[in-house]
């Protein structure tokens, strides 16, 4: 595996289940049965009703592009080879939004409302990032 020099996730006790699931190729979100809602990013309690008893649930990995930007000049030098790339807020079918990248199509083809599906990109032996690509039925 070639050297990966971009920032990597640093899982906490609260977020570790998300990253471990991603590494196994699954998109899991926290779910609160008390108020029937999903949440992302991971938190110690349900941000909606403060219930402490929240579970991890596997999700469809499907969503739509809520908004996006095409990056031509990156913040960090390690992203230089990737430009232009798309930073997006993807709204998942479960109702939460994730900051992510849209890959697998030309940046100019990305549009708001575009259906997308999760892609699991293994970037090191220990780390997998969740990105999204166009999805057609």
């Amino acid at each position, binding site marked *: 595996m070639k050297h990966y020099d971009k920032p990597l996730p640093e899982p906490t006790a609260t977020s570790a289940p998300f990253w471990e699931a991603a590494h196994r190729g699954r998109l899991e979100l926290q779910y609160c049965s008390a108020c029937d809602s999903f949440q992302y*990013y991971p938190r110690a309690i349900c941000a909606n009703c403060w219930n402490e008893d929240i579970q991890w649930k596997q999700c469809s990995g499907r969503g739509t592009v*809520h*908004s996006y*930007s095409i*990056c*031509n*000049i990156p913040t960090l030098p390690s992203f230089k080879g990737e430009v232009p790339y798309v930073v997006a*807020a993807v709204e998942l079918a479960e109702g939460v*939004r994730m*900051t992510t990248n849209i890959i697998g199509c030309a940046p100019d083809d990305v549009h708001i409302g575009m259906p997308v599906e999760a892609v699991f990109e293994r970037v090191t032996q220990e780390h997998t990032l969740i990105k999204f690509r166009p999805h057609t039925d």
Partner: protein
Amino acid sequence: MICSPLHLLEIVSPCTGGAALVVSRADALGDCPQDPVYLLGAGEAGSHTSVTHAPSLTHSWVQHSAGRAFEMAAIDRKSVDFVQLYDCFPITLLLTLEDMGFCAKGEGGHFVQERDLSWQGDFPCNTNGGQLSFGQAGIAGGMCHVVEAIRQFTGRAGERQLSDPGLGLVHGNGGIMGEQVTLVLGLE
């Protein structure tokens, strides 16, 4: 184009700097050599850290922070003589104007186009040029707007001095459009 739809001059440039002001109880001014500026109203509101998780990308929490500040100061927004608005990107300032109720949603662009925002204009806004002109000094950045308001009230704004400002509005935001704070400042 740096990151669509933002061009180079629409992005604050990081800079080094600091800002400070002295805050006191009104009845503890003693023999302060300078006329005080009063904090008449303050409002704070927030719901998220990253804008990705904002309930809406187009309606910010400025409406709540500004609403609370106006209510506490018991003033109407129309009575302010100048505004100092957080300006990391032009869109931040436009959303702030819209959510404060100076114009309808989506009309921020037209609003600033039709007005003279300079110190001599009909809607003095960021009379010091704002962060888009002189840079963003990290977390001290937002304070530059409070300092400029105090300079205007105390007649120390030099060649950009407003004539007789009575009420000023200062707004700052933190996180990524996540946390909003509005202040109403005045001379009495």
